[in-house]
């Protein structure tokens, strides 16, 4: 055991105290908004400023679901982001595998090129993107209208590129795909080919190799790439704002935004309850992510 001179150890103690005090201040600074959200959402008479509720109540949450279309917004958000995540997982799983195993010369240029999509701010591309989707949407509409007549709008609500689920799902997935492809490519790089070849020698068909060997082995990587996609798409606000207009297609962040913009009154109880509902899936996703991230980024599959 080494013995530090008394002066030095006192210095170290003072340094530690300063560090902890600073960190605590920063943590409090970061945590206060969440704390305010939580208590204000249960406050029957929530105000702009942090205060302890006089009466605890679920009224704010009831209002979200009964008076407002909260259930619909939540469903829309979960459906759109969930579908985009699923799409990203399937595409990044297949694509990451192909990118990992190919020896094509364009592999690295391609990987860097797609990362550019992720780096460019989507706001900058919003006009051409909108134009592009609008053209697709009009074409689809022109194709469907003669066949389905007045039912076309109901179909387009699901399959439309503008003001329809499909368009938003595709765009959200596209934004998340580059990072997920990178994650999966790196993951498969660390997965020995021997696994597949052993299965091949055992007589596994292509489908069996994917279903019984590759998918189970890739699960930690897929979970990581899916969770990243989910968390990032869940937080996206601009794309649904631009691409959706029908009230029945609104997502949670849009609902929250519009409730905040109402000029006659600002209902802090409603806003905080909405915000809290909006936070929960992200926090849950993060909880899952932590477990898989450790597995994925600390050496892949051991076996």
């Amino acid at each position: 055991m080494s013995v530090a001179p008394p002066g030095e150890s006192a210095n170290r103690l003072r340094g530690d105290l300063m560090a902890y005090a600073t960190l605590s201040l920063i943590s409090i600074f970061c945590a206060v908004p969440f704390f305010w959200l939580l208590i204000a959402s249960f406050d029957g008479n929530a105000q702009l400023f942090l205060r302890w509720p006089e009466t605890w109540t679920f009224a704010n949450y009831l209002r979200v679901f009964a008076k407002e279309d909260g259930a619909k917004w939540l469903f829309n958000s979960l459906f759109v982001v969930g579908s985009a995540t699923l799409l990203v997982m399937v595409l990044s799983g297949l694509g990451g595998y192909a990118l990992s195993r190919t020896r094509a010369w364009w592999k690295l240029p391609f990987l860097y090129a797609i990362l550019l999509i992720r780096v460019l701010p989507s706001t900058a591309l919003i006009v051409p993107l909108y134009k592009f989707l609008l053209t697709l949407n009009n074409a689809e509409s022109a194709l469907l209208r003669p066949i389905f007549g007045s039912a076309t709008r109901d179909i387009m609500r699901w399959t439309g590129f503008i003001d329809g689920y499909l368009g938003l799902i595709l765009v959200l997935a596209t934004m998340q795909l580059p990072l997920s492809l990178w994650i999966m490519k790196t993951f498969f790089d660390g997965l020995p080919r021997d696994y597949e070849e052993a299965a091949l020698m055992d007589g596994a068909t292509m489908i069996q190799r994917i279903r019984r060997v590759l998918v189970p082995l890739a699960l930690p990587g897929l979970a990581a790439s899916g969770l990243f996609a989910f968390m990032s798409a869940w937080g996206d606000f601009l794309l649904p704002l631009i691409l959706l207009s029908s009230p029945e297609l609104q997502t949670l962040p849009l609902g929250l935004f519009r409730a905040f913009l109402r000029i006659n009154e600002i209902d802090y109880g409603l806003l905080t309850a909405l915000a809290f509902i909006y936070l929960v899936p992200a926090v849950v996703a993060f909880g899952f992510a932590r477990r898989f991230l450790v597995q994925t980024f600390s050496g892949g599959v051991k076996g």
Partner: protein
Amino acid sequence: MIHLNNVRKFYGALEVIKGVDVTVDDGEFAVFVGPSGCGKSTLLRMIAGLEGIDSGDLVLNGTRINDVPPDKRGIAMVFQSYALYPHMTVAENIGFSLSLKKVAPAEIRRQVEEVAEILQLRELLDRRPGALSGGQRQRVAIGRAIIKKPSLILFDEPLSNLDSALRVQMRAELQRLHRELSATVVYVTHDQVEAMTMADKIVVLNQGTVAQAGPPMDLYHRPDNEFVATFIGSPKMNVLPVTMTREGSESIHLAGPLGMALTLADANAPLPDGAAKLGVRPEHLRVVAEEAAHFIAEVAIVERLGVETYLTVGSIDQPIVVRVEGDVTFRPGDRVPLAADPTACHIFSADGRILRSANAA
């Protein structure tokens, strides 16, 4: 019996297997050995069906199997990484090939237990590979191979992931298994000790060609070329540049480094005059009295192993290793008179072909 007839493999324009001819008989333990990158794995994977064969024939038990898919060849392979599926138990890993064939679960269980009995894996059947030691994983990987009742089992450097003590133990274990199963085995390694201790037949590969094939002691005593001579045996055979000069009709004189001078009997198939190489193993060099010495050299390194001692003598760029019985008192810097056993000398041409083998066997 597996037979390779003038087998070739190209990666693009690069020829990595350059016309290999090899035969492995039924029940034989054949070891393909060679330095890293010489094409051992490629050759093994061609036999397994994981790599295509660009030209030549691969014949298993009388049938040409060049174009038979891997799982239909009746060949099993144990991978270097073992490739055990981490999401399956030991039993599921071993029974995987049967479950793919839709064999009834009860029958799979019965066969898995049979295999587990042979490999002493009974207690581990419900564990996952992650909870096994290196040696146990190795046995599971072998179990996954032998449950298919293959006519040939391939191993690609299966011991390279184990520590040295376990490696010695697994070597014995593999030999026992080979005897019990009377299986035909092709085993790939870069380690000539593994090859010498386990093989019925060694195939030495060098840069995509067979340098020599045969029983271990044939290769040791009668190498076909300098490559095999120096690759097989540890410590390596000493190979020294010499100049040969005929001395009458019965003998030839060799002059080498360190003032080396010796005369070999040379009557029936006379050696040519000129530059050549003398190959002599460490155990065929002896410390002798000064007047009997072929050369005198300064000791650079002394390695005492108790039962024997290795002296490295000569210069750094032309070291010569001498094996001496027992524990000796030489020290670095000592000058020792040395002689080669004339009956144990190999003569190679300047480009490495054998001109004359030792006549001691």
